[in-house]
């Protein structure tokens, strides 16, 4: 438990530690490809060290202990005594996961136990390479303690030697040097080139120490050493400073405050719209130099409010990098577990998306990527046989188009087997056989988003959760997003999601049904047809609209919403899920920007109604969710 007076410090620590862990995770992934990259090793070591320090200050012992042991490992790698293997990396990743989890639990006010297994594994990961030295090392540590040099414990030999060289000759502890000597002699000789070099270096230094015991230390040598040290230190400090500056540019604000601001701007936008309407009426009726002035001021206010709206929206926007940076690790773990070789290529990480969407997208994306690796990417041997590169590629892309942001997951695997999809859909009783025959390829592909489709999938270690593609589709549509799937046999699968840039304000068509007004978000509306010019027939008891050569299912909104009969003034054709659907309304009242307000906790999520808005004259108008309405309609037919 974190005492109250430490809460603030803990929160700061948590934020910083999470950042450090993210970067550490990425560095470790990079290091797996390039195990001797000194810069990365240094950075990883520093990250772990910083976490250890922060946790130590707060007395979070389990974190300190794990970070300390992991730091030891990284230290050995840095000094070249240990080579990073995927196995060692696994242990380090476990340490990272543990620290992440521990921070979360402390945040929840829980206690965290010392993870003995993990600590033992961290120790044995180290011992695996340095077993013969361990006993001697212990002795060395004891001696260091004895001579008040305990800060050197666990440091690589040459670093200890370096420190000793800096001591005045008469203060250099004889025993320690002897022990170091022994340690160097027990070093196994059958080590990597790099390590050999290091041993040579330390032996050379060792000799120097011995020589220096007799004569006066060479001043020049010492100076050089000092200079090198200072230089190194300066470099490090510089790097740290750059980091600090970056941190200071970011201000943490309570989301609630931003939401309040959003609401106020929302109201302002609505009132501006009203004001503009009134003014334009006024200006039509009276013309004077005052109305000219009014027009000028209004157009300026119009612009400012527009800019303000965008600026406030932007405070909620975050680069998708925040989300994407989790995936190298996800891909690594899943592909390792499934014995696949996969490279993750990410594009457009600076694309920005509303924070609330970003947060909810992690699980769906993990699921899609997991599917790509599990069902898409072939095992390496099979890929070679097929003449494909051994390593599969998964592309994770984000980009803007119009006023929407697109997120794409694309793989170069075997593609979706339509026949299998058909078979599975039949088995699960999702569609009937003759219906299946009539379905287009696209419609068949979309069967994977059907709730019944993936229920058989067990909660596996790979996914961790039993979500199916239907959950993915639902999450996407809950943010007024769209999802599309394209697949080519043998070439791969591409899943494209699109989201509105902002979620607070949407352009909607205001429609009248009977004596009630509803809002229909404009983004999915394809066209609006006047009722008298439309051709309506029935196909197997269902009303459909014939437009040009297309047959579009028709949903009578007043019936579905339970308002009673009303005449069909217009048919609104919209793109819902994967198809065109027409909705009947009595009258159109024009389009407006509306501020979405939730209906409140008491209602929860109502399928078919996505929220409400308050119009300029204070009326409550419900916002229709066409996706949910279609689902209701389909259910009512099937019953």
């Amino acid at each position, binding site marked *: 438990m974190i005492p109250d007076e430490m809460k603030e410090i803990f929160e700061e620590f948590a934020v910083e530690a999470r950042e450090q862990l993210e970067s550490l995770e990425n560095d470790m992934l990079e290091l797996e490809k390039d195990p001797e990259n000194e810069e990365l090793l240094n950075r990883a070591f520093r990250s772990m060290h910083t976490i250890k320090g922060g946790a130590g200050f707060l007395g979070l012992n389990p974190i300190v202990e794990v970070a300390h042991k992991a730091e030891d490992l990284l230290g050995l790698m840095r000094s070249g005594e240990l080579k990073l293997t995927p196995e060692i990396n696994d242990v380090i990743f476990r340490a990272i996961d543990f620290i992440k989890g521990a921070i979360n639990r402390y945040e929840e006010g829980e206690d965290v136990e010392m993870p003995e297994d993990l600590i033992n594994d961290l120790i044995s990961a180290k011992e695996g390479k340095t077993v013969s030295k361990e006993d001697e090392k212990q002795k060395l540590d004891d001696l260091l303690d004895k001579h008040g040099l305990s800060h050197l414990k666990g440091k690589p030999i040459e670093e200890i030697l370096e420190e000793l060289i800096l001591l005045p000759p008469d203060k250099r502890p004889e025993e320690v040097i002897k022990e170091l000597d022994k340690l160097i002699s027990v070093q196994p000789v059958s080590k990597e080139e790099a390590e050999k070099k290091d041993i040579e270096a330390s032996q050379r230094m060792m000799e120097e120490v011995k020589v220096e015991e007799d004569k006066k230390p060479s001043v020049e040598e010492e100076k050089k050493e000092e200079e090198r040290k200072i230089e190194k230190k300066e470099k490090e400090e510089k790097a740290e400073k750059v980091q600090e500056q970056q941190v200071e540019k970011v201000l943490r604000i309570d989301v609630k405050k931003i939401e309040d601001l959003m*609401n106020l701007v929302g*109201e302002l936008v609505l009132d501006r719209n009203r004001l503009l309407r009134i003014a334009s009426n006024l200006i039509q009726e009276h013309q004077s130099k005052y109305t000219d002035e009014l027009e000028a001021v209004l157009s300026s206010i119009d612009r400012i409010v527009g800019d303000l709206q965008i600026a406030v929206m932007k405070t909620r926007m975050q680069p998708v990098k925040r989300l994407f940076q989790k995936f190298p690790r996800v891909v690594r773990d899943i592909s390792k577990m499934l014995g696949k070789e996969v490279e993750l290529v990410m594009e457009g990480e600076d694309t920005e998306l509303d924070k609330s969407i970003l947060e909810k997208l992690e699980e769906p994306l993990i699921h899609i990527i997991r599917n790509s690796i599990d069902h898409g990417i072939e095992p390496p041997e099979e890929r070679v046989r097929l003449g494909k590169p051994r390593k599969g590629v998964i592309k994770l892309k984000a980009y803007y188009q119009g006023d929407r942001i697109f997120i794409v997951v694309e793989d170069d695997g075997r593609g979706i087997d339509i026949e299998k999809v058909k078979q599975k859909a039949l088995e699960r009783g999702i569609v009937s056989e003759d219906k299946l025959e009539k379905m287009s390829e696209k419609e068949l592909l979309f069967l994977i988003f059907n709730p019944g489709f993936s229920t058989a999938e067990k909660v596996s270690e790979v996914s961790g959760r039993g979500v199916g593609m239907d959950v993915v589709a639902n999450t996407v549509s809950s943010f007024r997003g769209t999802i599309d799937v394209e697949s080519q046999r043998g070439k791969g699968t591409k899943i494209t999601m699109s989201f509105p840039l902002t979620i607070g304000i949407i352009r909607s068509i205001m429609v009248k049904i009977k004596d*009630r007004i509803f809002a229909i978000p404009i983004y999915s509306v394809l066209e609006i047809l006047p009722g008298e010019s439309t051709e309506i027939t029935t196909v197997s008891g269902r009303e459909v609209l014939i437009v040009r050569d297309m047959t579009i299912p028709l949903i009578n909104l007043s019936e579905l*919403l*339970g*308002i009673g009969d009303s005449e069909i003034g217009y048919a609104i054709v919209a793109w819902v899920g994967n198809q065109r659907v027409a909705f009947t309304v009595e009258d159109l009242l024009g389009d407006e920007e509306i501020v979405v*307000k*939730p*209906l*409140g*906790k*008491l*209602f*929860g*999520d*109502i*399928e*078919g*109604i996505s929220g*409400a808005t*308050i119009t300029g004259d*204070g*009326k*409550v*108008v*419900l916002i229709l969710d066409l996706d949910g309405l279609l689902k*209701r309609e389909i259910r009512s037919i099937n019953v």
Partner: protein
Amino acid sequence: MADIVPVGEKEIRKESQEVAILEFLGITLEDELIGFPLTEVLSISKVTEIVPVPFSPSYIVGVINLRGDIIPILSLKSRLGLPENKEYTMVVILDTSFGKVGILVDKVVGVIKIPANKLEPNPMTGRYSRYIRNVAKTDQGLLIIIDIDRITKESSL
């Protein structure tokens, strides 16, 4: 410690030893006198235009706009097993664990003060009694104190 009593403390003590007085907003639904703890009452207003919400249970009459907030409005009569003869005239906005919720009432009686020891446990059993927290005898008749959180919890979808 206990011996040192600052001036004036004695009187205050004496008062606090007396039974606490609880305040309720009394309203009527048909012939019943019903009380909501005053601490949970946010405001009282006239019934304005209520917009019905499709696909929601019948006791949620709809939503209203209360100074820019969308607030659900509940009709309790059917929930409490009361007939529906009299017309609703007012809305009492309560602060519940599900946020602000408006309750339609026939009439607002006013604030009713009741000493805490005059509260009696609910004597009734049966379908509607689980919504009743306490009852108390008053000059205006038997006051039924409603557990609004229990109603909203069961009303939530």
